[in-house]
């Protein structure tokens, strides 16, 4: 794994416009950054990331299996009791999932360490699947990177295939919150994939969902929402006004309810409890677990439901370094062993490995200056070359 300077394509902004990539420079801050790229060997990808992700996903399934059979676990994850039965049922009915992203500490040398799993509402999907792919092809064509390079990125093909196998009958509604360019870009891209899979689609905002007299959710035309892809966290849906109506709404959710077990930092403590010592796991404990003392004075404190690095705190020998402010923490915390991101030319890349229908499907590298990868991180393309 190395960080290489690469000349940016001269017309990349125009290429972005042509491909509908509208959020590459949000609020004037650079997000897409092709002034360099990460090169990996095929072994670093396949042995270092792809195989571990496949194995970790199976371990995650064991955690879900345990959670749905043990209310104590759902309680520790701060999942509202009203949804315990619903989540268990979504798992027993084998409701299919679409996608997720596991974030790793990885430098190409030692084993990749799982920081967390965004199994519910990951973004950075479009730029991973499409714009990064276009960059690779054009960068090779223009001689900016060597011919014969490859990329860990079969996202587009796999997403279309997965949409076709979800079993959707009738229209698929896709929703995110209003006024969120990045989330909207992700939903627009997924809608494009769903259409290519032959599905009828209807996009809407989560705020516009209605509740009908028979308990169904409706769209703005009062049509029932039977299949809903929602880029909106399960833990928010569950606690909001219509949340209690979800179990009897007749709506099939994508991601399914059981993903709430995985998209929770408590997962990392449960994984460590069940697979202690696994090379791809960091020691992690629920904060009230006496075992957390094993971490000593250096650890990272993460709210169970944090996103984009919010409310994460580094503790080292009594000193603390805070991540960005945010609304999380009331639900509880885990403590994870301190494992700093590797440094390349003073920048800290985090490897996010995508899963589509629970299979490894691609990667994104996001770089930040600080220890926490936040919403301000840059997306840097990668290529594979031995």
């Amino acid at each position, binding site marked *: 794994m190395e960080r290489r300077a690469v000349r940016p394509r001269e017309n990349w902004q125009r290429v972005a416009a042509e491909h509908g990539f509208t959020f590459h420079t949000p609020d004037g801050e650079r997000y897409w950054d092709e002034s360099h790229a990460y090169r990996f060997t095929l072994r670093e990808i396949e042995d270092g990331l792809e195989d571990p992700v496949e194995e970790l996903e199976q371990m995650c399934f064991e955690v879900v299996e345990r959670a749905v059979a043990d209310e104590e676990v759902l309680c520790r994850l701060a999942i509202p009791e009203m949804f315990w039965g619903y989540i268990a049922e979504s798992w027993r009915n084998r409701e299919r999932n679409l996608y997720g992203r596991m974030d790793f500490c990885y430098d190409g040398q030692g084993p990749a360490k799982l920081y967390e799993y965004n199994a519910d509402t990951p973004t950075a999907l479009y730029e991973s699947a499409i714009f990064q792919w276009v960059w690779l092809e054009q960068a090779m064509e223009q001689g900016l990177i060597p011919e014969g390079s490859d990329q860990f990125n079969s996202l*587009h093909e796999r997403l279309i295939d997965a949409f076709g196998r979800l079993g959707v009958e009738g229209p698929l509604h896709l929703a995110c919150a209003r006024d969120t360019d*990045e*989330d909207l870009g992700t939903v627009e*891209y997924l809608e494009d994939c769903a259409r290519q899979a032959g599905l009828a689609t209807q996009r809407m905002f989560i*705020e516009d969902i209605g509740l009908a007299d028979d308990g169904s959710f409706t769209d703005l035309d009062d049509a*029932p929402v039977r299949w809903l892809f929602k880029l909106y966290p399960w833990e928010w849906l569950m606690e909001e006004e219509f*949340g209690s109506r979800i179990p009897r709404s007749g709506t099939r959710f994508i991601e399914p309810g059981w993903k709430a077990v995985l998209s929770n930092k408590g997962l990392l403590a449960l994984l460590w409890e069940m697979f202690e010592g696994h090379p791809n796991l960091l020691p992690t404990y629920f904060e009230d677990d006496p075992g957390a003392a094993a971490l000593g004075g250096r650890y990272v404190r993460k709210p169970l439901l944090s996103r984009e690095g919010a409310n994460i705190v580094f503790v080292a020998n009594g000193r603390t370094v805070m991540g960005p402010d945010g609304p999380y923490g009331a639900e509880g915390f885990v403590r994870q062993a301190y494992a700093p991101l590797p440094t390349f030319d003073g920048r800290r890349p985090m490897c996010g490995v995508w899963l589509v229908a629970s299979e490894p499907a691609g990667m994104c590298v996001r770089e930040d200056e600080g220890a926490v990868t936040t919403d301000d991180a840059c997306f840097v393309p990668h290529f594979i070359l031995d």
Partner: protein
Amino acid sequence: MKRSGKIALVMMGTSALTLTACEEPKTDAAIFETVEQCVAEQGLTSDQCYGEFDAAKAQHAEVAPKYASRADCEADFGAEGCEVSPYRTNAGGSVFMPLMAGFMMGQMMGGRAYTQPLYRSRDDSKSFRTADNRTVGNKIGRTQVAERAAARPAQKLYTQQRGGFGARARATGFGGGG
């Protein structure tokens, strides 16, 4: 190879725009206000006409738009243009819907139009429109309609309330993706 073999977008970006600029495909259909008009149409039997009319009528209450008051319904469908639907509001009040003004059929004449009820709105009372509010013209008898308009209409429920999701996004100013 560890990457997709090809990439195509059908909706996003400028390549997608050129695709949607094409003319909308049409299909054969027939439109009638009454069963009698249908029976009088050459090539259609009385049995066929009653069968199609009944099929359209049976969908009417399910697919017609729903209103909490007669006044709201009449604002869209004109005075005397509405009736009470089988739906009820939370408080037990009546829910209103427009009167069925005709029906469309298609498969009898080899077209793809889905048999369904038609309506007339107040602001465009000469034209028929589907329950999904797509206009299908004003011609009685055999005609051609856009395939999109001839699709099976969606069920319309009576929405009691909206806005029960999204509070956390509003409160945090953050959409929830990550």
